């Protein structure tokens, strides 16, 4: 992709994020919320920006679509077209199309690849319904200077009229700030205004020559709060408010009637799961980076260069030094090495930091799509998002699109009951699905919780029995029963709904998570709800790993999966039913060796005090018997070649400082192999 196209995609993606956010907000707010005009206006501006941007790159189809979008939004913000649910649906569909077009352009295709003629016709139908209104000058209704209308934009004028119609109290305030800081100070004031009302216009005051070290502004705004409260809150920041009086009592000018009734919405395609997933995915592989972060990186690199040349100098001196001089030089080298290591850690952290993006980006996109799915099922569901500011590696976040969408769809489709069922159970008729993200040490946790019907363990058991997975009257723990859900093709729904496509697919979710080193767990209570907990590593690129030696082979185990390490006398290892176990703080932990898992030859010598590395994922744990522990190291995992495909238990390989290669273990895979070999219980 050439540079200008890359720039375009990056800027377009920003605008798309904004569009998604706008539509999410619009769907959430009640019709009377005082923040709505602002949001619609922001929506209009984003569409306008997209039009300009795509026009500059001669993407005529995209800019044409954006243009129609912008006209529709202009009519909406001027109240020529009411913003009802039907219109919001059309807008949502439009955003969807824009995403498709941008993605098409991003992958090198033309923007004509997406057919939008039908949609544009719909937009045009909507627009033609509007009726222009003719009103007197504003100064007829409000105590404002005559001719103020000419300095207002058409939209601002409309906002004045709309508020006049609703008889909302008007205020004006005059303020002046030093030119260095006016934007910050002005922002404080506008935020204060927007809390309780609407900012109508900010007019920089023209000066009459002379001093330009300060700049004055005149603001008009409305507020629904009590007059005394408003006046006081401004007095607190040293500003005098003027209440703008109404002149004549404004007759409620009739709101323009729109010909179009609630519109039927066509969502361009339905194609089930893949189409929806496409919508939620990010468009590009780029991240926006704060310049300060890059400056910090440059500094670190610079310091490393200095340290390195220090080392080079030391190396030179060893060539000519006496023995005592050489040993003191060795000390210097060691010191340098420690300093360099610290800088490298800082460098690693700084680079990882740049890959991080907030979960909110994914949440915004998920919100729009999940609301669409909910509407299609006809269920009344509220979807909440928490922890959008939690940051995650961009690559990992993109990997989470599919699993999260799957889980949310399950909740909507199978979890939340119909309104009648909920009423019968005396639940809130509105179902709730809550997604939260938070950081926990070196992991990020995503939870998807619903207050639906929960998972019927008895039903799961029945199906398991039918499939021969459970013998007769075996009794299983709740965890063991739930783990059946993660087997391929296991579904507790007899009919497959159109929304979820082929079935529940939790096995795929589990797989996708394990591939990136994460885990999934389920908690559920019948008739109360279900919670899925996904644990993810914060970043993939560089890992801390524990180096171990087993039968002369070196392996690396990701520290995230290492629960503890110990060394015990061999006689503490017991054998029960052919399996080796140890008892650790009242828990029995099964043991195995890597040779057994990978079917490798074993060294004859068995140490009397072997080391054990307890590894685990989620609530499962087991111990690996090893000959030696060789400390922690940062490793960069690289994928193994095709020859290694299909071997469970290997995550990849890493290159060590001395240029030797070590195999990096995949703990999830190891545990599965252990199960297969009978070293571990059947729980998958």
């Amino acid at each position, binding site marked *: 992709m050439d540079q200008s196209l890359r720039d375009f995609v990056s800027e377009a993606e920003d605008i798309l994020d904004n569009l998604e956010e706008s539509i999410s907000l619009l769907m959430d707010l009640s019709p009377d919320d005082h923040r709505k005009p602002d949001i619609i206006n922001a929506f209009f501006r984003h569409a306008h920006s997209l039009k*300009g941007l795509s026009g500059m790159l001669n993407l005529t189809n995209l800019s044409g679509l954006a243009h129609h979008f912008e006209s529709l939004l202009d009519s909406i913000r001027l109240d020529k077209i009411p913003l009802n649910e039907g219109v919001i649906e059309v807008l949502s569909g439009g955003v969807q199309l824009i995403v498709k077009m941008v993605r098409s352009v991003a992958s090198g295709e033309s923007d004509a690849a997406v057919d939008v003629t039908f949609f544009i016709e719909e937009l045009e139908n909507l627009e033609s319904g509007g009726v222009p209104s003719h009103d007197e000058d504003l100064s007829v209704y409000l105590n404002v200077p005559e001719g103020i209308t*000419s300095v207002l934009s058409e939209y601002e004028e409309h906002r004045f009229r709309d508020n006049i119609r609703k008889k909302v109290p008007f205020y004006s305030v005059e303020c002046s700030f030093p*030119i260095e800081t006016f934007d910050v100070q*002005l922002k404080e004031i506008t935020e204060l205004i927007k809390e309780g009302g609407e900012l109508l216009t900010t007019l920089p005051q023209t000066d009459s020559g002379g001093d330009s070290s300060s*700049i004055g502004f005149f603001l008009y705004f409305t507020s629904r709060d009590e007059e005394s409260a408003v006046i006081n809150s401004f007095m607190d920041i040293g500003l005098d408010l003027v209440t703008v009086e109404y002149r004549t009592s404004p007759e409620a000018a009739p709101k323009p009637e729109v010909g179009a009734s609630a519109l039927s919405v066509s969502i361009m395609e339905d194609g089930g799961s893949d189409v929806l997933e496409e919508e939620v995915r990010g468009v590009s592989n780029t991240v926006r980076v704060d310049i300060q972060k890059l400056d910090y990186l440059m500094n670190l690199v610079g310091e490393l260069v200095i340290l390195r040349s220090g080392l080079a100098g030391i190396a030179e001196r060893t060539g000519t030094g006496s023995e005592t001089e050489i040993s003191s030089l060795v000390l210097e080298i060691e010191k340098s090495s420690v300093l360099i290591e610290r800088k490298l850690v800082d460098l690693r952290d700084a680079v990882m930091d740049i890959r991080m993006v907030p979960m909110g980006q994914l949440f915004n996109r998920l919100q729009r799509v999940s609301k669409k799915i909910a509407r299609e099922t006809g269920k009344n569901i509220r979807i909440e998002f928490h922890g959008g500011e939690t940051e995650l590696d961009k690559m990992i976040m993109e990997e989470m699109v599919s699993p999260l969408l799957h889980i949310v769809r399950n909740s909507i489709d199978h979890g939340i009951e119909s309104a009648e069922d909920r009423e019968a159970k005396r639940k809130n008729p509105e179902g709730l699905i809550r997604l939260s993200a938070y950081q926990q040490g070196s992991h990020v946790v995503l939870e998807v919780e619903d207050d639906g019907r929960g998972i019927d363990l008895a039903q799961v058991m029945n199906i398991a029995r039918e499939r021969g997975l459970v013998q007769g009257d075996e009794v299983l723990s709740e965890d063991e029963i739930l783990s059946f859900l993660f087997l391929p093709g296991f579904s507790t729904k007899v009919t497959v709904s159109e929304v979820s496509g082929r079935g529940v697919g939790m096995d795929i979710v589990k797989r996708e998570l394990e591939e990136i080193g994460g885990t999934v767990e389920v908690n559920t209570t019948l008739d109360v709800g279900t919670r899925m907990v996904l644990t993810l590593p914060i970043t993939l690129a560089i890992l801390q790993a524990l180096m171990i030696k087993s039968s002369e082979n070196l392996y690396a185990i990701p520290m995230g999966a290492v629960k503890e390490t110990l060394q015990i006398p061999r006689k503490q290892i017991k054998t029960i039913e052919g399996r080796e176990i140890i008892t650790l703080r009242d828990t029995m932990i099964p043991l195995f060796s890597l040779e057994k898992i990978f079917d490798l030859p074993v060294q004859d010598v068995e140490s009397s005090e072997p080391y054990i590395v307890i590894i685990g994922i989620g609530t499962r744990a087991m111990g690996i018997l090893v000959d030696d522990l060789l400390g922690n190291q940062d490793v960069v995992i690289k994928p193994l070649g095709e020859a290694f495909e299909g071997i469970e238990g290997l995550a990849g390989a890493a290159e060590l400082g001395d240029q030797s290669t070590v195999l990096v273990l995949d703990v999830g895979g190891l545990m599965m192999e252990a199960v297969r070999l009978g070293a571990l219980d059947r729980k998958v």
Partner: protein
Amino acid sequence: MRKTILVVEDSPITRSLIVSSMEDLPHIRVVEAESGFEALRKLPESTPDLIITDINMPDINGLELVRFAKGSENYKHIPIIIVTTEGRDVDKERGLALGADRYIIKPFEPAALQEQVTQLLD
């Protein structure tokens, strides 16, 4: 003697296109602002000979910038070109009514903008 042009535009790509087409002209120095507020700040320190401004911007829009400049003793002599988009006639009209000297519709050929700028600066 070099002339200074103030370019006010919030879209990075569009701004860089305008800036580079201006820098291609002889004896020109370009000052950039990525919002109306930033333009207000840069006006006194750069005393431009020409302003090119977009209309659609977040904090104060291009129309308010035109009104401010044309109403201020210090800046009313500065010619202003407003950049509008297709179909926004109302912006163009209000801008011209407020005192903007020329308008140009995006997307435009750099040569067209350069032509207008050269005319206004002579």
